[in-house]
């Protein structure tokens, strides 16, 4: 599906925002400002931006561990800097700094956050999808997962149940070729992972996850189907992460030239070419987008750096809804 010029411009800007967000996060992860480990989604912007573009604020989103992009784009514009300061472990973080990179949620836009156990959100997502059926509304749930995550037993239990009950659930399986160092063909028997979904008689397809137009088109169909109450869809989006598994992983397991080949399929480059060649967007317009994004990101970084750290003693808050836990 060809997007309108306006639409493509919008998602191009979204993708650029992710790219730049991740690049800055990488800088501060590498220099030690950001604690813990960080999974970057550079190279996978189209899958994240495209899916979020299709969703409403009232749809439930389960980003995965490589989900900064989906997280930031799901957020209200004024909250985006707080997504970054969360990753910086700051008190202004959208979760007060207690979650960090792997656990950024914002219930006000139904970003449900991630759970560090791979495959866990894949079953939690059953619950929000079930809720739509129970309450007879048309909210859709989308869960992001990786090619590696498909190894977990929960994926089976989830697809089996959502398909049996026709829950409004879309599985976005970003096949970025690797689970840490293990290529997907070494962990799964089928040639394309989406074949798996067919075993449940669930509509399942493999698409170019770097082509934002294709991502939006196919996701829209799946979301529409879910909203109509016709059940789940599994979309395998082929893509590639440019960085290693986590920021700092040298990714020595990748064959020579593989990264370079995928850089040719850079989703931003593809979108930009379309904008320029098909829609006649000028260099100046592209530059203007870039400038806007720079301003935006610079603000996030500044905010993140300048924010105070959380109060240590707040660590004992919220263990129970109705009981205190002893502090020091």
């Amino acid at each position: 599906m060809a997007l309108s010029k306006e639409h493509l411009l919008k998602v191009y800007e979204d993708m650029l925002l992710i790219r730049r967000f991740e690049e800055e996060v990488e800088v501060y992860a590498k220099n030690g400002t950001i604690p813990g480990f960080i999974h970057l989604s550079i190279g996978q912007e189209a899958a994240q931006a495209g899916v979020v573009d299709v969703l409403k604020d009232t749809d439930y989103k389960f980003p995965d561990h490589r989900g900064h992009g989906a997280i930031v784009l799901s957020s209200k514009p004024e909250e985006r800097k707080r997504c970054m300061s969360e990753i910086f472990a700051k008190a202004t973080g959208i979760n007060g700094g207690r979650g960090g990179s792997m656990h950024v949620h914002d219930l006000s836009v139904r970003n449900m956050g991630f759970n560090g156990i791979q495959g866990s959100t894949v079953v939690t997502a059953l619950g929000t999808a079930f809720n739509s059926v129970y309450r007879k509304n048309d909210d859709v749930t989308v869960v992001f997962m990786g090619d590696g995550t498909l190894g977990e037993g929960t994926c089976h239990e989830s697809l089996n149940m959502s398909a049996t009950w026709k829950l409004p659930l879309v599985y976005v399986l970003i096949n970025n070729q690797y689970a840490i160092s293990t290529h997907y063909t070494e962990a799964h028997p089928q040639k394309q992972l989406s074949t798996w979904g067919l075993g449940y008689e669930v509509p399942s397809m493999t698409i170019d996850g770097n082509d934002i137009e294709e991502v939006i088109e196919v996701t829209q169909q799946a979301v529409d189907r879910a909203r109509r109450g016709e059940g789940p869809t599994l979309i395998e989006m082929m893509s590639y992460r440019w960085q290693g598994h986590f920021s700092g992983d040298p990714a020595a397991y990748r064959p020579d030239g593989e990264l370079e080949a995928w850089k040719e399929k850079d989703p931003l480059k593809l979108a930009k070419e379309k904008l320029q060649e098909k829609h006649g967007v000028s260099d100046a317009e592209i530059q203007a987008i870039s400038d806007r994004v720079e301003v935006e990101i610079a603000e996030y970084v500044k905010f993140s750096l300048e924010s105070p750290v959380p109060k240590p003693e707040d660590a004992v808050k919220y263990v129970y809804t109705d009981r205190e836990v002893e502090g020091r």
Partner: protein
Amino acid sequence: MARIISFSKALNEAMTQEMERDENVFILGEDVAKMGGDFGITTGIWERWPNRAFDTALSESAITGLCCGASVCGLRPVAELMFADFITVCYDQLVNNAAKLNYMYQGEASAQMVVRAVTGGGIRCAYHHSQCIEPWLMNIPGLVIVAPATPYEAKGLLVASIRNNNPVVFLEHKHLYNVKGEVPEELYEIPLYEAHVEREGTDITIVAAMSMLKFAQKAADEMAAKGISVEIINPRTIFPLDKETIKESVAKTGRLIVVQEGPKVMGYGAEIGAMLGEELFEYLKAPIKRVTSLDTPVPFAPGMEDYVLPHYEDVITACNEVMAY
């Protein structure tokens, strides 16, 4: 006048009345709807609310995962786990998801779910249908484990568990299902986190939950005949423990016996014992005692299983020993 019903019926009534009161409550699990549950506890619910009772596949992770997600949307799922031993296949959802949701969501939403699980031995079903699972969950802040010992508690604690906003693992001991007792018809809550002093006494404190309570009661009678006064504490909520009530009691008696089904090692008796050794050292008049199952899996043959399960005589021996100390 007082109505006498079974533990099973009390549970059924708790769910039914809560479902009448709050349309966010629903039940799900293997065979809980059309058949009314493997143990018949959910009988009649599906007939009345076919859209609020769900038979599932054998997918305990999906069941409990669904509970987590649905909770966050404001629903109040009550799942049945059939045998508590099966908690092992959805352990992750309880430990790493349900227990931590309120913490992760900073109090904005929580896993306000109940997982009903049929616990304990004595029915000759061997290794995987006889275990006491509470110790596996008691190192997990955020979880609540509730363990009724009477029909009255079954109803009042299940109502409270359904209304509670934390994830509750609700233990139902197989040997209690047919026990009968007084249960008010109207809805009532028994507060969580509060142990119940079943019987006051001055010489020995016995802590005993669920089906072990009867051992404590019998022992208290037997000791009373010898002029020894036993105080019995039924924790009701096994985790987090009501330390205050236990401490108050042992501060008075100076002697503690924990009667616990399940292996001795790292049962709840361990936490109670250590807690007293820490906080009530100066009050203890005798060594603490744990009367428990042996540290083995649960075998099938009745004689073997009975050998492994806690023995009443050991409660009496423990009483005599702490008094003689």
